[in-house]
């Protein structure tokens, strides 16, 4: 059962601009403007929050317990009911949603940050792989994504021209997104790992995002047009790429079914597809036709602050509902090599 009996909505969203390098600020300093923005938008203070939950990764920060410092940005005094997932912030939002469902809180702050630029992100992500059979080979994130892209091409589902069109469409959309890192089309460039070219890959960048969730009448009080979470679910697949059909995403499909994504048509989708070929896989898994606007923000191909990118997809979808630009939106987040773990949320505005 993944349909909420209670009404829970995204009532505020903010993000920092995604920058290729942020050596001038700490993680807490990078996060602070996003936190400040959502608290100001809702008029809430830290002490009013029923729950706080965050997502981040020590491996990106290069130090253990890195998330502890973000409590300085939250201003967790007096102490706050708080938790943290070592995952993308979309999963922190999921944990907060569950907490609100229990009735123990009626507001929650969710935040996430990632400083991808601090290390060599391709190598760092290879440490997510099975330490006995895969990681010793150091397959990097681009190489694994290239295997997936080649499998799609071999299956006749796409070609390099189609992939270039995906890149072009996302980055063209990003031109109107002040937070994106690549604002406007880029040349496809040379192969990074065949068949993926520079243009098929996300930029490396640093950024942070924050969301406020609220229940029922509290949500209506804090926001003129709450983005109600009609359903949210996430599912994982086997780890070894060889155990999976890389041209399909059954976990995305299952999460979407459980979240009620197919109960009614969506008019907008924000997909967490760092590599062009992954958008092709996700569109199929989610039955997204040409009538659905996909990634008007530019998506992960325009800005990819790891551990925040998924939360930003939910935030971007919610923000369009807040502004009346969308009524029913699907937001997707992913984790792991070749879309191993996927989350789908369905957001809806009130009928005008």
């Amino acid at each position, binding site marked *: 059962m993944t349909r909420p009996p209670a009404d829970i909505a995204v009532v505020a969203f903010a993000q920092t601009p995604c920058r290729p390098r942020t050596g001038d600020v700490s993680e807490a300093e990078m996060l602070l403007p996003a936190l400040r923005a959502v608290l100001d938008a809702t008029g809430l203070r830290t002490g009013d929050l029923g729950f706080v939950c965050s997502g981040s990764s020590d*491996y990106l920060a290069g130090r253990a317990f890195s998330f502890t410092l973000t409590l300085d940005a939250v201003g967790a005094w007096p102490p706050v009911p708080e*938790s943290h997932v070592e*995952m993308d912030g979309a999963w922190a939002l*999921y944990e907060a949603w*569950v907490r609100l469902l229990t009735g123990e809180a009626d507001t929650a702050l969710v935040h996430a940050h990632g400083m991808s630029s601090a290390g060599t992100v391709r190598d*760092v992500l290879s440490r997510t792989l099975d330490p006995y059979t895969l990681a010793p080979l150091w397959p990097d994130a681009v190489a694994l994504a290239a295997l997936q892209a080649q499998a799609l091409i071999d299956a006749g589902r796409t070609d390099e021209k189609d992939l270039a069109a995906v890149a072009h469409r996302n980055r063209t959309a990003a031109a109107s997104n002040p937070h994106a890192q690549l604002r406007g089309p880029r040349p496809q460039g040379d192969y990074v790992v065949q068949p993926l070219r520079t243009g098929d890959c996300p930029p490396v960048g640093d950024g942070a995002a924050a969301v406020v969730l609220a229940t029922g009448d509290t949500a209506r009080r804090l926001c003129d047009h709450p983005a109600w979470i009609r359903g949210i679910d996430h599912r*994982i697949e086997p*780890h070894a790429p060889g155990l999976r059909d890389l041209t399909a995403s059954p976990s995305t499909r299952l999460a979407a079914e459980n979240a009620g994504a197919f109960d009614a048509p969506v008019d907008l989708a924000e997909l967490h597809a760092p590599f062009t070929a992954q958008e092709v896989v996700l569109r199929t898994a989610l039955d997204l036709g040409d009538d659905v606007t996909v990634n008007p923000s530019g998506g992960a191909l325009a800005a990819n602050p790891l551990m925040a990118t998924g939360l930003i997809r939910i935030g971007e979808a919610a923000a369009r509902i807040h502004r009346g630009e969308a009524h029913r939106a699907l937001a997707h987040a992913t984790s792991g090599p070749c879309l191993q*773990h996927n989350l789908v949320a369905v957001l809806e505005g009130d009928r005008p």
Partner: protein
Amino acid sequence: MTKEPVAVTGIGQTRHAAARRDVSLPGLVREAARRALDDAGLDWPDVEAVVLGKAPDFFEGVMTPELCLADALGATGKPVLRVHTAGSVGGSTALVAASLVAARVHRTVLTVAYEKQSESNAMWALSLPVPFQPPLLAGAGGFFAPHVRAYIRRSGAPADTGALVAHKDRRNALLNPFAHLHEHDLTLEKVRSSPMLWDPIRYSETCPSSDGACAMVLTDRAGAARAPRPPAWLHGGAMRSEPTLFPGKYFVSPRAGRDCATDVYRQAGVTDPRHDIDVAELYVPFSWYEPMWLENLGFAEEGQGWRLTASGATALDGDLPVNPSGGVLSTNPIGASGMLRFAEAALQVRGLAGDHQVPGARRALGHAYGGGSQFFAMWLVGAEPPAT
């Protein structure tokens, strides 16, 4: 709509050791998970979701390990969450799993926490490198020793209080076949004369580094009714966090710990913890933290916790047994240490704690803390379902 009551129907833990070279990471978590499922009379398909916890990924050198452990935990096609709240993580992980049941998102959830400390050196992994802190501190003991000294100065506690705690917990561990340390010939005198590591914390007053995992099956009322053995019922659970360092921070008795306990007691209807709680499993990685937490959690007035320890009240045959399992001082796979406290509390009220069973335990507190005494997670479990 009221919350669904949450029951603990399955508990499993691994054999703990300084190095479990006989198992891989998947083998380690699966050993605990399989035992929890067996205890609950369930099998992998009965689990709807998995909530995994551990301390920093650097300890084993595997980033986001839920990805490569999904198969071993039977999680394919299911939701998996990975919690990380420093040393409190084992407790937080259990609470996140409990909220999935309480919110009626899932009916039966498997929660697992682990650490395989032999993959690295936790002593140095816990010593943050420059530039993040000055190169003055070595290991967690280096961080906590000054706070212990502050406690001694403020409370006037006798110098041997810590040794009493260490001796008691290590003796309790002899009754627990799963404990890492079984020091059959340990005497109080040996604790008192063990090498000084971080004044006033001696070698025998310090937690070991362990490989190990703990798992629990949490389920709803219907699941509890089908369980083959008596369940433990969740009566209250809470988490609280405060920043690491700030002017006015009270390391001896952090406000986050007090607030967290207050919240749990309110949910559970506890008005006098000393009277209302039969047994407590507290996260005591360094001996002196027993009296410090007894005060922080309201079992003793401020400055008086050491008297409870000295009186023998916290011994297995005392009126408030603390750490009958042997505690963190005897077994410390960091990411699982909090869940082991929660699990021992549940074992006690289920009457399944074996030789370290506290007779007639009806209500038990499980406690975990982490970071710079800043993250707290606690639950109170009972033998009877909560009144709803």
